[in-house]
């Protein structure tokens, strides 16, 4: 999760993506584009459901892009477009310079086998195969020999904390452990891109936190390009390098999580963020004063710009008079006054015309 020095390259570009469900999507699409109909109007006048409307997202290499939205917002539909489990009504998904929608069945299979792996909300493991066989599904599909793939699978099962479970069957494991198998399966495929569809939504909160930590830990090491779907804002803020908020099939706002928290662009998001633990999400770099002039300041210590505010408050033991010097590696980048920090924690009120007001 370290802030990259330079802008990472875009791995997947989603351009003007539309998905309309119904008997004649092309006709309904014209209505949406030309007349600007929204989801309820389209349903009423044309009897079609607007799944996704004009989606544009850049998924950057080595980052976790989180798509967040409530149920029915189209997030699971969106992620299924990336590996074309669902075909769009209109739009482009550019991967490695080509529109993935133009890929032949053969090419698409190769991409799914070798370059994109997926983790599912309901785990979707094969009940009649052992954990190790499940984990090596992608390799088996590619036609790699059993001896070879089982070794590879064991390696990744160890990595996700399932040492010694290779010979068990999925139904013998708890939900959290089953999802670890799901993650091991995605990692064993050694694909650069991981699509995670509400991967943790079916898990208990405590196990979910564990799994989030596991993902961040793995990510630090592996630098995969991850597209993560969730309906949980806390989870989204914790994991996201880039956060996309979806509502009724439309992107409401997309940005770095810090920015979304500090500058919500829509009453919908204001409502969302109003009861978030801001100290845990906000980082020093977003609230510090960008100055290197430290003269006359009583510097209490040095902190890294990527620390979150909760850590700093703990470090200062709640003393609001302290000032810290902020560093990016060895470079001084700014100064953080505890007063400023406290001010940044003032919650935004739930908006007047937002969903809570209703």
């Amino acid at each position, binding site marked *: 999760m370290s802030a990259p020095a330079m802008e990472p390259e875009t791995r997947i570009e989603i351009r003007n993506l539309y998905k309309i469900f119904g008997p004649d999507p092309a006709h309904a699409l014209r209505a949406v584009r030309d007349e600007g109909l929204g989801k309820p109007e389209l349903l009423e006048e044309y009897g079609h459901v607007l799944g996704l409307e004009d989606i544009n997202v850049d998924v950057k290499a080595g980052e976790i892009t989180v798509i967040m939205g409530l149920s029915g917002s189209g997030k699971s539909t969106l992620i299924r477009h990336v590996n074309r489990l669902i075909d769009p009504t209109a739009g482009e998904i550019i991967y490695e310079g080509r529109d993935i929608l133009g890929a032949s069945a053969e090419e698409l*299979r190769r991409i*799914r086998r070798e370059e994109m792996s997926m983790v*599912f909300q309901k785990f979707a493991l*094969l009940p009649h195969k052992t954990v190790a066989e499940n984990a090596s599904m*992608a390799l088996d599909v590619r036609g790699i020999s059993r001896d070879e793939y089982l070794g590879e699978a064991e390696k990744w099962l160890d990595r996700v904390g399932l040492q010694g479970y290779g010979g068990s069957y*999925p*139904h013998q494991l708890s939900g959290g452990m089953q999802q670890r198998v799901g993650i091991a399966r995605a990692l064993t495929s050694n694909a650069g891109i991981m699509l995670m569809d509400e991967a943790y939504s079916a898990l208990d909160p405590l196990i979910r936190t564990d799994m989030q930590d596991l993902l961040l830990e793995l990510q630090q090491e592996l630098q995969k390009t991850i597209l993560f779907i969730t309906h949980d804002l806390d989870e989204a803020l914790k994991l996201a390098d880039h956060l996309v908020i979806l509502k009724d099939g439309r992107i409401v706002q997309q940005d770095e999580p810090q920015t979304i928290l500090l500058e919500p662009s829509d009453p919908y998001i204001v409502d969302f963020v109003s009861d978030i633990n801001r100290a845990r999400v906000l980082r020093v770099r977003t609230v510090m004063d960008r100055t290197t002039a430290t003269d006359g300041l009583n510097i209490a210590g040095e902190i890294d710009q990527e620390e979150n505010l909760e850590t700093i408050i703990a470090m200062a033991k709640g003393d609001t008079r302290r000032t810290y010097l902020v560093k990016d590696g060895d470079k001084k980048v700014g100064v953080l006054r505890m007063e400023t920090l406290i001010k940044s924690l003032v919650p935004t009120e739930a908006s007047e015309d937002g969903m809570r007001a209703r």
Partner: protein
Amino acid sequence: MATYESIFHALGLQSWCESGSEQSSGPTSIADLLTQNAGTDAPAPSIWKLPFPSMDELHEACGAFPQSRALTKSIENGFLDIKDGLSLVLDPITQPLSWFLEGALWLFETTPWWIMIPVLLAIVLLVSRSRRLVVFVAVCLLTLAFIDFYSFAAQTLAVIFVCALLCVILGVPIGIAMARSDRLQRMFIPILDMLQTLPAFVYLIPLIFLFSVTEPKLYGIAIILYAIVPVIRLTDLGIRLVDKDVIEAADAFGMTDQQKLIKVQIPLALPNIMAGVNQTIMMSLSMVVIASLVSAPGLGVLVLRGIRNLELGVGLVSGLGIVVLAVILDRTTKLALARINAGQDR
């Protein structure tokens, strides 16, 4: 005057009716004779006694109108007309069935009992992995042998073995094809419904015309047609019921349709397919008894003898023998099914 004569008058069809009446040389029915004997006093027409305008009733009013007897007769003639062509095609296609049945019967009859019974017990052990069942089956088979029913039971088993195996070989692919295509499913379901509801005896009627009664394939086809339905239905159902999420995962990891079928769909549908196989075996057993009417060998022959000659004891004992076979086959396949289910418990 017949009730509906006036209608033909009104329609101006009188001359047509009269032209037909001379030709109607069908046999006189009992009812006709009775009315003739009763004298000519026709009862006063009453709305309560108005007969339904059926073919026979209309024929009475108008001689040119065909009797219902003509309908069944024409179906019969139609069938007899195409019969030669049909058996020209069906005979070679179904010939292997005769060979299989003859082969299996030969195998089961010539293998000495002291090899056959241990082999059967070994198969039961292999499939069910239950010693208790093996002991039970051993007791049953030895008892049947002791009361001199062994060779009949062996014949029945041979027929069931061939027919159930062919049902699975043909039925599973049909079920898979149905699961994959909604159109095919819509086409097949009425056929399966018909096969399932048609009384077992009715299968035999056209088959007797098509094939020689001395050939084993006659009863082989009857048994297969009757018993194949559950395995087709349950294969279709089983594959359609496979968890959509797992199928999606298989797609997401780039499985081809064939890989999906072999690695995901069939294994996950196996409990249902096995339930279908169990039903198929049970239904072949019930049909093998009825098929003894058309020379199917085995315990059914004894049941038939019991009915024909009123040999109560033979009929009852062979009936019980069939029950014993049914229990053996059912328990064995059920335990195999339970083992598969246990492996897939969630």
